[in-house]
């Protein structure tokens, strides 16, 4: 499998590897995939009171394209609002990294991961969800 230069760059110098405290109320955690499938992606965001993502971290078990997709995504979401981050499409990731067709799902995984992290954050915060957000509000510590 030939990888694009961008995939190799992210793979060799992954950005924002690590973990945030998942108990922190400002942190949202998304974990998608399954070991049996050969890919698991964990993406975490720290959101400030203005609803802006201040920090993002990832850990990925999967192929080089999955690692690159999650690394790229952490760069992209920093400084974005939850709405902006939630609007990122896997096709943008795939295009940026020049992923071949068999690797498109690696970018899908990254999109799923940020969506899951945002949802987790929304579930656990007192912060008012945006108007179009249907989920019941829940109070937590």
């Amino acid at each position: 499998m030939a990888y694009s230069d961008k995939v190799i760059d992210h793979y060799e110098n992954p950005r924002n590897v690590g973990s945030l405290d998942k108990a922190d109320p400002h942190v949202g955690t998304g974990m998608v995939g399954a070991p049996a499938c050969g890919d698991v992606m964990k993406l975490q965001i720290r959101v400030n009171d203005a609803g802006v993502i201040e920090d993002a971290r990832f850990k990925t078990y999967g192929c080089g394209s999955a690692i690159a997709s999650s690394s790229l995504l952490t760069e992209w979401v920093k400084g974005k609002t939850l709405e902006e981050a939630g609007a990122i499409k896997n096709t943008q990731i795939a295009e940026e990294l020049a992923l071949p067709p068999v690797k498109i799902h690696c970018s899908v995984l990254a999109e799923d991961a940020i969506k899951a992290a945002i949802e987790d954050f929304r579930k656990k915060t007192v912060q008012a969800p945006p108007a179009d957000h249907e989920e019941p509000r829940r109070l937590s510590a």
Partner: protein
Amino acid sequence: MSSRRPIYLDYAATTPVDERVAEAMFRFMTFGGAFGNPASRSHSFGWEAEKAVEEAREQVAALVGADPREIVWTSGATEADNLAIKGAAHFYQKKGRHIVTVKTEHKAVLDTCRQLEREGFEVTYLDPEPSGLLDLNKLEAALRNDTVLVSVMQVNNEIGVIQDIEAIGNLTRSRGILFHVDAAQSTGKVHLDLSKLPVDLMSFSAHKTYGPKGVGALYVSRKPRVRLEAQMHGGGHERGMRSGTLAPHQIIGMGEAFRIAREEMGAENERLRMLRDRLWEGLSTMDEVYLNGDLERRVAGNLNASFNFVEGESLIMALKDIAVSSGSACTSASLEPSYVLRALGRDDELAHSSIRFSVGRYTTVEEIDHTIALVTSAVEKLRELSPLWEMHQEGVDLKSVEWVAH
């Protein structure tokens, strides 16, 4: 030649042609050499080529303890497997249409069996034990009155385990069933004496034993006599079993490669075992590294290990300075994790994390030591990136997690 080529540790995929073999081959191609058609009976160009082909047949036969008349040239082990299995199944189909093989066979055997199933044959695919070896009782239980052929490889290409083909052959002989063995990975690695072994058909390939790609042979036993239906029709070469003008340069290459193997395999295997054991000693100091396949009943040059919590394809990517192979890729991509490891009952996670290292004639101690260092740092790096490793460190039982499979 680039000075920074990766370290080659994929001798089970193919081997380079030995220099001595390449030199011998070159004498059978150009106008100044013996370029004749071995089937030309009317002039010395043909006789010369034929003589060399017959000498090569003797070399191949000598390595495996066969009579030269029992060796049929083919284009490789894939063709030999096809000829053996389809040829025997078709020839003996009036006796029965049931075949027994093993799930860890090479695709050349498995896909040939699938084709026979489409033609109305029945095939039983046996599960090996977790060690990769076949339980003879399970084989015996699978045999039926209409079983005509059993096909079991001797040395597995992925995990290197060696099946007890003598015991299997004794069983099939006692039941009047033909026995085919894919021995593509055996030559030069395990001692073979077909004059004593109860084997009816055996496939060989040149390119796994420092010969050229694109040539192989099928052993077809004369005592007891085994008949085959030809798969390739034409000029009636190879006693009608395989038509097509012989390729002397390829055949001479295989003969020379097998001659060298016979002379050098004793010393070579000792050296390979030392290198392989050194590699395993170095790698197994890491946590959560597992050997795949039996350690004792295994060829000297093979090491197949799983690096838990690290995905194989990303590991291969980190190991760009080493040429190794991994049967793994996530199930969403077109590749499945190794079917061989799955047949051993390995967890999917471990099947996804496997790497095959195969050492050979040109591997050095320095390369092994460098490999240990590279693999160790790659595994450490990827584990730092792995959420599974983190959970394992935190004491989470991964089996108890509800995964969001996609």
